[in-house]
């Protein structure tokens, strides 16, 4: 099972360029039509499950707007089966 991940996109930096949308291997990022930044952009956000926290969106993001979190696999291993 791939690790679970999530991203937080900063409204301060995101300009809605969609480079992360095109680069996401899981195709789980889209511009969020319900949000609008102070500069008037719809920022990117996760729109469905499936983020693995691979970080590719952050690599291609020109505005370093994305913080990427991933499930700590060491923690997963540390948890006994069935716990």
């Amino acid at each position, binding site marked *: 099972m791939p690790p679970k*991940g999530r991203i937080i996109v900063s409204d301060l930096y995101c*300009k809605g360029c969609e*480079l992360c949308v095109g680069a996401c291997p899981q195709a789980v990022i889209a511009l969020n039509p319900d949000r609008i930044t102070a500069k008037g952009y719809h920022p990117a956000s996760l729109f469905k499950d499936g983020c693995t926290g691979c970080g590719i969106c952050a*690599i291609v*993001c*020109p505005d370093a707007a994305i913080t990427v979190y*991933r499930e700590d696999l060491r923690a997963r291993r540390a948890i006994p089966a069935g716990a």
Partner: protein
Amino acid sequence: MDTQEEVIVYARPDSLTKTNTHYCPGCTHGVAHHLIAEVIDEMGLRERTIGVASVGCSVFAYNYMNFDFVQAPHGRAPAMATGVKRVFPDKVVLTYQGDGDLASIGMAEIVHAAARGENISVFFLNNANYGMTGGQMAPTTLPGQKTTSSPNGRDVETQGYPIRASELLATLDGASYVVRRSLHDPKNIRLAKKAIRTAFEVQLRGLGFSMVELLSTCPTNWEMTPQNSLKWLEEHMIPYYPLGDYKVNPAVAEIKG
């Protein structure tokens, strides 16, 4: 998910300021900025780095990178960096220059900084046009490429040929590390970051002049979406400006190994 079981895979580097850039959406100048900032963070160089900004879209680089910066006249960043570095040989000195700045008005300064083996790191953004002034023909504009000052496409008969700066500088004995990378996809961005790191390693070891040329997009002036700009870069720029290592001093090769 419980945050205690998470690791941060990526966070904005400390070496970037908390400022929204003036760059257009999707412009890969921003990618170059965060790569440089990440490498400076990872190598722990922030407190001893002095940047030299240039003129063009990169004129405000000093606003976005969170370390000491000076602002050079158009094309003169390598000369100004020389002044800084000669006074402070132990600081890390970088220039951040566009193609009009480096390959046109500043050609003398970059050639001689490289020829002197000036121990500085140059980051050269090539997006095949003058972005800041609205998309005029640059020394790097491709044959046939339309710009606001080559409206019928660059005619090499009257407007000459593009300059391949990396190949040109690689002929100089003072240049230790001269490579061309691209910012158009994740794999190439990773390779660009490695090259940026190597450039700083070269400087820290006192091996002389290093330059990383970064092929970059300009969606606004190319009149394309950011996504299509990446494709245009890959399909049109890379054939004319092949990616690769143009000068790697044997001592640099050891670092990479």
